[in-house]
């Protein structure tokens, strides 16, 4: 416990800053959304644009999360289980999406897969497939932006856990798949869930990269964050804040989940350290 008045003052200042910078805007979002009553909120929520945006956001997240879950586990497995040339390089490369502005990522994809590019034209001519300014492109950039999360959470954990338990499983007759399913997965499951929560939060809220490749076609390629921007520019304040409220609520749920998972994780570690002779 703090002893001096200046320690208390510092703590108070911290709470004050949190209130002004974080809580107040959050409260304002909901109060703005409900400023003209619940009926207007309901109208906005059921508008075709809003429903289409919610659907699109959910689809993007539903594809992105499993893809990056798989990618993250595979990558963490490779990096922590095998010794090979370029292992360090690989662990550095997966941080590119963290280091790079999402808008730049979106532009890169546009250049490579857009209608003006060789790849884009070839896909259009042979398969009749248009990636950019459509759902596939939006999913692609979201996958790109969120791909490090799962791997980043798993790599340090799997490194510290080592491979002896897997070796023990194999010597007891387990196949590689059985060793993964019955030994590795239970060891990393909480970290994995944590990675999924982070990936999902980012996938749902991504604005920059998606806005570049979406083409902003109303009712077709607008996710929730893009819709908020659109509604705000249309002076539909209630609509914008309703969509914002939706995202904020999702963020709060994510935060809660994350806290619970972290608590579970810590609980597990504490339990593991508590040795009864």
């Amino acid at each position: 416990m703090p002893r001096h008045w200046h320690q208390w003052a510092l703590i108070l200042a911290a709470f004050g800053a949190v209130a002004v910078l974080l809580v107040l805007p959050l409260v304002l979002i909901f109060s703005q959304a409900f400023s003209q009553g619940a009926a207007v909120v309901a109208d906005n929520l059921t508008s075709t644009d809003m429903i289409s945006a919610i659907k699109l956001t959910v689809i993007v997240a539903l594809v992105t999360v499993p893809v990056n879950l798989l990618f993250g586990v595979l990558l963490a497995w490779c990096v922590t289980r095998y010794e090979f040339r370029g292992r360090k390089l690989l662990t550095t490369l997966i941080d590119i999406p963290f280091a790079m502005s999402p808008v730049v990522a979106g532009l890169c994809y546009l250049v490579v897969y857009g209608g003006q590019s060789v790849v884009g034209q070839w896909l259009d001519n042979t398969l009749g497939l248009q990636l950019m300014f459509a759902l596939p492109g939006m999913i692609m950039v979201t996958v790109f932006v969120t791909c490090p999360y799962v791997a980043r959470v798993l790599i340090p954990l799997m490194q510290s856990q080592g491979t002896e338990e897997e070796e023990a499983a194999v010597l007891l007759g387990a196949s590689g798949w059985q060793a993964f399913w019955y030994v590795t997965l239970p060891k990393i499951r909480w970290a994995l869930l944590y990675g999924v929560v982070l990936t999902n939060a980012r996938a749902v809220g991504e604005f920059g990269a998606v806005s570049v490749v979406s083409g902003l076609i109303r009712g077709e390629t607008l996710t929730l964050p893009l819709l908020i921007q659109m509604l705000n520019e249309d002076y539909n304040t209630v609509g914008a804040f309703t969509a914002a409220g939706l995202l904020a609520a999702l963020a709060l749920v994510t935060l809660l989940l994350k806290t619970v998972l972290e608590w579970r994780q810590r609980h597990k570690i504490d339990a593991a350290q508590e040795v009864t002779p």
Partner: protein
Amino acid sequence: MSIRVESIRKTFGGFTALDDINLDVSDGGLVGLLGPSGSGKTTLLRIIAGLEQPDRGRVFFNDRDVTTLDARRRRVGFVFQQYALFRHLTVADNVAFGLRMLPRDQRPGRDAIRARVRELLELVQMDTMTGRYPAQLSGGQKQRVALARALALKPEVLLLDEPFGALDAKVRKELRRWLRHLHEQIDVTSLFVTHDQEEAMEVSDRVVVMSQGHIEQVGTPLEVYEQPASRFVFDFLGHINALEGQYDGRQWRDGDASLRLDTHGACPNGDLTLYLRPHEATLARQPSDSASLPVRVAGRSVFGGTVTVELEPRGWGRGILEVELDRDAWRQLDPGRDEALFLLPRDLQTVTCDGDLGPRVRPA
């Protein structure tokens, strides 16, 4: 099941872990791989288990070449140094793991698995802790669970990597005796790795002494102790005192110390090094006809039936010497502080100029 290893070579990058290793372990043997860290003993164990692939050479189980056989199909029991128990499974589930991984047509039923687990846990005296998690067990308990788990599939080969390494002295001793006993109870060929000389001597039928990727000597504990094949083996098995001096054809000398010997082992320039085991010497107030090695007691440690005495040479030698006397001899002598004493060696080992072992000699 017998194990045969032929011309095994293994390198890691530029480091040669094993260099042309040949070894035979007969059926039912209990063999200790003994060596300092970095001698390649764990690598050899892992190659036999199939966890590492040798660069060259073959591994046979009962004349069947298993070199390229996958680790999961070799059916060896393996106990890891840090036990490697599955942390998310209870003691019972850890032991049952191997049985549950069997293909469906070979897998015993639920009750049969439970019965087998109970039987194994009784064997290792852990049947009261079936529901505990590894984190709730002490080192010795984890060790026994790891053993029960390794024995679940009735392996004919049991490999143990430093099985007692992480335990405290008292538990170690108890478990060593228990492992010997267990080995006699079940029909299995066991190979264990250790860096502890005492452990290898006490537990094994045969000891394989390794150093820097080579096998230095294979033999019974008594053989390797009494007839060490190389300077390394002599050096590694128990504490030794090295006495470095000059030999003039009749007497060994170093400063104020002299020792009459009958040997031809000296180098051309007259250098002669003698090894003295702590229990192959005694102490007296007077020098003998053949030996005059003045010393002073620098410290002593009384433990069990022997007294280990640390001696400081007076006017010769470098560093502290160590001898072991039995308790009665020590009590009879009862030297005062700083009293001048003389070291009387009974048996000495000569070292040749190129560093090999020469003949054993006695003061004459």
